């Protein structure tokens, strides 16, 4: 692979809750246009890593670069200074703890392991709300409809997006009345509405049957092309992961145990021991 610009770079990130180290010295990077998968057994710290990258948790130690800028940085301080169990405690000096909405404004968008759509809203409104962060109006200009042009533009964009993801006919339905697979699709569409540079998908195929998974695989590939985004995904469906990932990171007990292209991972002894098991069982 040619040397491309890094969109995301995670350096020595450790996340410790009390005495439990959920993520231990994780370093990873995502280049522009790549699809990168994070895999590993349950409790390996995959979702925690996501939460650190997207600003839900401030890491105990480490740094995250996004699109060339340092966006998250922390080092063990205060109470944590004594009880810190990880390494590189003196590497970083700054404290940068943005809230998730700030990172979303910079161009990161995510979906959730357990679908988090806005229940009382229609499919259309769910996506329209994601346009709120790019608003130029304040409360007064919005209340008195001075932002009419912007609103109309947003509505048009939402309709286009719905067309692309194939949910156009369902736009006036309540988001929660959709079948499961379409709710997942809607959640991805909602994330795309924020115009992200990096899309983080937390188990997008969870609970899907093989055929739905197949469709999702195509869908994710199509998104990368159409929306020009880099994608990080956590997934347990190995077919999907091996099919679309450019590179794979494997976590076990919070530690990175392997990284590489799918073929390397498939053949890696450590990964087989910790996660994949004997090749015949890999389907599950």
């Amino acid at each position, binding site marked *: 692979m040619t040397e491309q610009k890094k969109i995301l770079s995670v350096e020595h990130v450790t996340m410790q809750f009390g005495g439990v180290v959920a993520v231990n010295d994780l370093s990873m990077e995502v280049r522009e246009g790549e699809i990168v998968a994070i895999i590993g057994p349950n409790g390996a710290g995959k979702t925690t890593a996501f939460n650190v990258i997207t600003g839900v948790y401030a890491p105990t130690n480490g740094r995250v670069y996004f699109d060339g800028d340092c966006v998250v940085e922390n080092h063990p301080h205060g109470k944590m200074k004594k009880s810190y169990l990880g390494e590189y405690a003196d590497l970083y000096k700054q404290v940068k703890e943005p809230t998730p*909405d700030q990172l*979303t404004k910079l161009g990161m968008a995510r979906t959730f392991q357990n679908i988090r759509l806005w229940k009382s*809203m229609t499919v259309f409104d769910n996506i329209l709300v994601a346009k709120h962060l790019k*608003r130029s109006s304040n409360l007064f200009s919005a209340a*008195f409809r001075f932002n009419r042009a912007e609103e109309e533009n947003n509505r048009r964009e939402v309709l286009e997006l719905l067309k692309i993801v194939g949910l156009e006919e369902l736009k006036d339905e309540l988001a929660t009345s959709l079948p499961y697979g379409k709710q997942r699709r809607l959640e991805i569409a*909602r994330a795309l509405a924020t115009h992200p540079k990096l899309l983080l998908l937390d188990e997008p195929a969870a609970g899907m049957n093989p055929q739905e998974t197949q469709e999702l695989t195509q869908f994710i590939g199509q998104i990368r092309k159409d929306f020009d985004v880099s994608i990080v995904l956590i997934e347990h469906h190995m077919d999907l992961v091996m099919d679309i990932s450019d590179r794979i990171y494997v976590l076990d007990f919070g530690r990175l145990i392997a990284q590489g292209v799918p073929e390397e991972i498939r053949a890696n002894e450590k990964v087989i021991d910790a996660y994949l098991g004997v090749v015949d069982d890999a389907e599950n």
Partner: protein
Amino acid sequence: MIQTRSKKNAWLAFLAVLAFLTLIFVLDQVIKPTDRLGMLLIVLQKGAVYALAAVSMNLLNGYTGLFSLGHAGFMLLGAYTYAIFTIPDKSRDAVYQYYDAAVRFSIPEQLSRHMGGFGTALGILIALILAGAVAALLAWLIGLPVLRLKSDYLAIATLGFAEIIRALFQWSKLGPITNGSNLLKNFARASKFKLEIAGAKLSLSTFVPVLIATVSIALIVLIVNSTYGRAFKAIRDDEIAAEAMGINLAKHKMIAFVTSSFFAGVAGATLAMVLSIAQANNFKSAMTYEILLMVVLGGIGSITGSVIGSFLFVAASEWWLRGLDSGKFLGIEAPNIFRNGFRLVVFSVIIMIVVLFFRQGIMGEKELPDLFRKKKKTPVKEAES
């Protein structure tokens, strides 16, 4: 096509509101307060005030999902601000009989000196906005620490704030401003509002409170239907998802809290205007619960629900069930049962029945126009092939 339809609906709503206001204006002229139907005017006045209070509470509790119980406190701030700045100079010393009044400035009076009757109206409008602004400012100050709290804790903190405000306003050391535990009176009040056209005096005592409430509720509706209103709903439905989609939680919660309090302040000012008095003792937490009850009865998350709930509540407690307290109800005379306090017993039972049969409140999350709209069903297509 979507645009034309929503435009048509907006015009229809506007015309309906205009017709309603005209009706109120006519009723104001036709019915005299001493008539048998005079009670209707009082119900309309108080109902309008409580409707505004309920809708502003709904903006926070129903739309943003922040369970706050400080409403009476913000209404108190509004009522006092309005009263203090509209007491005419000549009656100020009579009102503050035990204290030396600190604020000696009546906005309507000052303006009427230069602009006559129009100045009085403008002054009252300014006093109303000032009332809202004071409540909003306090809401901002309180919101800084309190809005970090969630659900019940937020409710307790705001409830505590409202009680503190009430106690503070009755404190004798603040007497020069608040008149201590004595009531404020003689300020610009609804019963004195008149319009003089060609020698004919037209009463505005019901029209003005209803107009204030209508305009304020219209503003809240505009906010709720704007991009900010959608963001509020997103926060209510799922805070974590809202934040992940770029909605700044602290900022939007603050906007909702301050806006809600602003309109609570205006509602408090209008209540003072209607009752002709302002006294801290009236703004007990029971008032917050009454407003909460109207919101719940009407349907949390429905503005027309809150309005309907308020008018029904006020009409029932002030008018329809009055007989239960005074010996004669629906033609039945039973002075031994229908005594003071029996009204509240019946009222409680009615509320329990309503809550049992309308779990979501009268309107649920629907608005009035939704009921006229034909519900078209498009079956959700399962993923096929």
